[in-house]
């Protein structure tokens, strides 16, 4: 199967590979996919509590080259964006950017799911942590 240059580029030089402290209040973690399906993505974000800007985004992916590229691209795109802006990223944007063939569209879907899951995890933390944080910052 032929891969697009952009997929090859992300596969060869994946951006933002790594791990953030999942217990930190500022970090949201999304873990999507399943090993038996051949794809697992973990995407993590670190959000500035005052500006709501995603200051760091890290990923690790078990999956094919297109899955690795989709998650690598996702971290690139969400870095520097506000949380709500990041939520606007659609899997079709990833398909277009990476020129994914139809059989690989599920990789882009998984990447979108990973963004949503990471932001969802972070939002949940904010709700539970809010009172404590307010005390701290007061």
């Amino acid at each position, binding site marked *: *199967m032929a891969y697009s240059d952009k997929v090859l580029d992300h596969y060869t030089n994946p951006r933002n*590979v790594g791990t953030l402290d999942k217990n930190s209040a500022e970090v949201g973690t999304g873990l999507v996919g*399943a090993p038996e399906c*051949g*794809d*697992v993505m*973990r995407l993590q974000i670190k959000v500035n509590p005052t500006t709501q800007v995603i200051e760091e985004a890290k990923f*690790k992916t078990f999956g094919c080259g297109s899955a*690795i590229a989709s998650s690598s691209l996702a971290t690139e795109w969400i870095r520097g964006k506000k949380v709500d802006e990041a939520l606007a990223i659609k899997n079709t944007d990833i398909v277009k950017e990476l020129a994914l063939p139809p*059989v690989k569209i599920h990789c882009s879907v998984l990447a979108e799911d990973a963004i949503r899951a990471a932001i969802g995890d972070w939002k949940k933390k904010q709700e539970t942590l809010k009172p404590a944080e307010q005390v701290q910052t007061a």
Partner: protein
Amino acid sequence: MSKHTETATENGLKDHFGDHPGDHPGVKLPIYMDNHATTPMDPRVLEAMLPYFTNRFGNAASRNHQFGWEAEQAVEHAREQIAKLIGATAKEIIFTSGATESNNLAIKGVAEMYREKGNHIITAATEHKAVLDTCKRLEKTGCRVTYLPVGADGLINMDDLRRAMDEKTILVSIMTANNEIGVLQPVDEIGALCKEKGILFHTDAVQAVGKVPVDVNKSNISLLSLSGHKLYGPKGIGALYVRRKNPRVQLQAQIDGGGHERGMRSGTLNVTGIVGLGKACEIARETMAEESKQLSYLRDKLKDKLLANLDEVHVNGTMEEGKHLPGNLNISFVYVEGESLLMGINEIAVSSGSACTSATLEPSYVLKALGLGDDVAHSSIRFGIGRFNTEAEVDYVADKMIDVVKKLRELSPLYEMVKEGIDLTKIQWQAESH
């Protein structure tokens, strides 16, 4: 290096290959290490075939002129070369288009011919699709088929086979060597049991013939499928061995026409292919002992290097002496997905244990039959080392695999989680929502 290509016959198989990888002098890329899929043709085979494309183009069925006689003579010579390799007689060799046709003819031919005697066929879960799908079709026409399981070693259990046999069993079809994991089924024991029970024994020996000794009499084989392109011969030619005595096996032809091949397979003979298959068998018979030692050495070197440098690596199928094809190695690189692995080693031609090109990821049914989980099956690579692979290539492949697996494990959330002591089976995985 000259940019001009030289002739394939004089320079073997490497002349059109490109770059030299820096730290492995003498290695040219890409490296072909997928010899279970197909083998490059031996230049000696091509040489033997060439005259039959041009001057000696006759139809082997033309009985009244020299052109026909020449072709017929070449065909009969090839029949002997093939028969000799498997301990058969020339008259027991029927030419086909390949092992898929041989398997179809053997199984359907027996099922139709012996319908009055019975309708039960026994095969194994790890057989090639050419056997399994043939059996599935027969099930629609009133046959009963038992698909024997295999153990974690990839082998059938003889007690299972014995228990599966009943008074309606007419055929047992069990492969000699498996195409994915390279294990050798106990054909001697299977043949002996079939003989004792008066049941015909067919074996798909396409991966075994020319690689390990095969003897139709020693193993009491009634029918045996083989193919040219798996043993350094041409594609599009195969043969079916059909036993002529003790007992004589009869088949219902599946292709009707001019009555070629004693009525069992009509169609003008593929003389060039047949000549090539014959030559390939002759070479295999002469070189097998030496070659299998060399291939076992290379395979063990690859295996030992990978196991010494990587953790969480599992070899699939028994590696017990005498129970494995010399050039085969099937390994699961756990927590790394097979397709991404292939992408990282794109200058090395091997096969992965998953068919990721389809919309649904479908892990190998052979690996699943061994009891491997889908995730591990997805992480599996089949190496097929062959006659033309060198030790330098094996070293290169080992080093490259180690590099790429390490890199992908850096990327793998699963590997990280396992290293942190997390039990992956306890996690509630959520598959994609669309």
